């Protein structure tokens, strides 16, 4: 299998789907002629033209709403937010229109749209540009949320998201765009709602998604080598729908859980998973449920300090050790 970047994997997903289905189009700030602020859409405007790959003014609310309207009519918009942080100027369109119109119409309407872009801290772009709204969005029944960690997952989940008939909020990561991995050529899908066990283990379950999966894997290796503790690393891949079964199975095996995410802690995704486990697997637990999240402060600019804000292998390991 070719070794390609996360960025390229997404790019392939778009070109597959643009080719396969005329109703798919890409839209967003600088996605076309500029090739995307992070080059995720590189070459697509040249190849598919201005009808299918569309640059927008800086009007997120309007073009997100446009996407919803076009999707109601049966098109399949893939709308880029240059950063998911900018979703907040169009939040109403996402929550109320994409999220509620199906229900309020008694099922007469569906909104087959993908809203995508990076959602991550860690790049010194400051508090307003480093939001991770997966928890805020996944709070809304009607919306789906996907956070891929690897190039392989990114491509397969993106194709599945574009083909999904509901709105999928797809959260990428600028720190992952350059990562490489093996990715099949051509089309394949990874179903939403299926977690992936990225590392088998027996002593503790690390539950993570997005970039935190890689941090968790790193921590797991060290834990094995230095402490002889075998951590299972589960990648949620999709936040909503959520693969609770895989999580519960792992907990039933390891009896110890550490949740790792780059979300802010208060009502973050790991809070939801912790609550779920405390309800559904309580009797399996041999220790408290612990979490390693982004430090609970706005994203700081200063480079060395921002590194401390996101989960690190060290923080994971020291937390994990308290459970034994």
């Amino acid at each position, binding site marked *: 299998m070719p070794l390609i970047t996360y960025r390229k994997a997404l790019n392939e997903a778009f070109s597959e789907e643009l080719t396969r289905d005329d109703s798919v*189009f890409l839209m967003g700030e600088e996605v076309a002629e500029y090739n995307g602020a992070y080059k995720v859409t590189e070459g697509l405007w040249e190849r598919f033209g201005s*009808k299918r790959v569309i640059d*927008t*003014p800086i*009007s997120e*609310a*309007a*073009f*997100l*709403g*446009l*996407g*919803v*309207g*076009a*999707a*109601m*009519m*049966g*098109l399949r918009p893939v709308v880029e937010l240059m950063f998911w942080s900018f979703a907040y100027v169009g939040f*109403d*369109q996402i929550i*109320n*229109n994409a999220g509620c*119109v*199906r*229900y*309020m*119409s*008694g*099922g*007469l*309407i*569906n909104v*087959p749209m993908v809203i995508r872009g990076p959602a991550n801290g860690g790049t010194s772009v400051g508090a307003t540009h480093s939001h991770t709204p997966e928890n805020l969005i996944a709070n809304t*029944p*009607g919306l*789906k949320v996907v956070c891929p960690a690897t190039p392989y997952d990114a491509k397969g989940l993106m194709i*599945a998201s574009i083909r*999904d*008939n*509901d709105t999928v909020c797809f959260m990428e990561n600028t720190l992952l765009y350059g990562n490489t991995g093996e990715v099949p050529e051509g089309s394949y899908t990874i*179903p*939403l*709602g*299926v977690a992936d066990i990225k590392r088998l283990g027996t002593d503790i379950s690390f539950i993570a998604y997005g970039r935190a999966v890689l941090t968790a894997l790193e921590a797991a290796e060290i834990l094995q080598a230095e402490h002889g503790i075998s951590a299972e690393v589960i990648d949620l891949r*999709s936040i*909503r*729908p*959520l*693969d*609770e079964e895989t999580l519960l199975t792992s907990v039933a095996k390891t009896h110890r859980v550490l949740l790792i995410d780059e979300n802010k802690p208060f009502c973050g995704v790991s809070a*939801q998973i912790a609550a*779920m486990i405390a309800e559904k697997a309580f009797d399996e637990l041999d220790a408290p449920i612990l979490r390693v999240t982004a430090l609970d402060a706005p994203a700081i600019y200063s480079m060395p300090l921002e590194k401390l804000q996101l989960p690190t292998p060290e923080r994971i390991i020291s937390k994990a050790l308290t459970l034994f």
Partner: protein
Amino acid sequence: MITTTPDSKEVAQAPINLAFTSEQKIAALREMLRIRRFEQQALKFYNQGKMGGFLHLYIGQESVAVAAASLMNGHDEMITAYRDHGHALAVGMSMEECMAELFGKATGCSKGKGGSMHFFAPDKHYWGGHGIVAGQVPLGLGLAFALKYKQIPGCALCFLGDGAVNQGVVAESLNLASLWDLPIVFIIENNGYSMGTSLERSSAIDNCLAERAAGFNMKWSVVNGSHFYELRATLHTSMEEARTTLRPVLLEIKTYRYYGHSIADANHKKYRTAEEIEQYKENHDPISCWQHQLLEEKILTESMLESIDGAAKEEAAASVIFAEASPWPEPESIFTDIYYEVDQASEAGRTGVHFFSDSR
């Protein structure tokens, strides 16, 4: 305030009005009456506590939705805000499904899930019914975008209120529509108030709201909503412009609502005078004006009018009986119509957990 000059002769002679057959003219009157009688019934039963939430009546504004719907070509798409009963009936939704929706019944157009603010009929090119002020405007843009994308020779009719114009997304949408040549007619139903706030207290304007379009290089005009011919002529020109040149247009229709913002609005005689309301009813009521016109044209007789109105009243009353007799939605339906894939029980819908509470 709008002027009292009657619909001009000229405009009645516009080709689109000349092509308007007597039957169609009567049909337009019938639609307006149906809307009014429907809402009067709704009001009655709302006051009896049969409905929940808000009830925003369209009474006084009926000409606008009816004129617009009378011009839809089978490819055009319509969308509006929460004051949506008139548009719904005008595009052909039945009183029964609409009334049942108000009653929160399973037979309602949205299965009782949407209520007064959320009537939809995609099969009739009607996309709601939206409760967040101006939230529907970029959706309208999306309808126009899809028409153009699919090369369908229609336009989108996107209604909004005078208060809605000050939501930022409206300016964004005007810019996009003009920049991208989208076939859309934005229709401001300027009834003079947003809740208790008069236009002067909500909007800094030069002469009129519609003029803001100029800053976006977009055509605009202002129309008297009581003048049905004028309305139709201007709407027609604008819709044709949108359909054929793909250039958007912004129209401002001067109109008026007789009731409060919603029926819960107990203040509505405080922020405007009783005389103002009476003056409008007397001189500008869109139904009276159109009736008068048709009587003058001798297309309509008093007895025809009576029977049309009688039928509308009966239909409205029957819709209440239908609604009352209809069942409530099943509690299970709380969890349907959220995800398409779940509803279809497709593989995507069956994979992973979609809902995170107990089911009851």
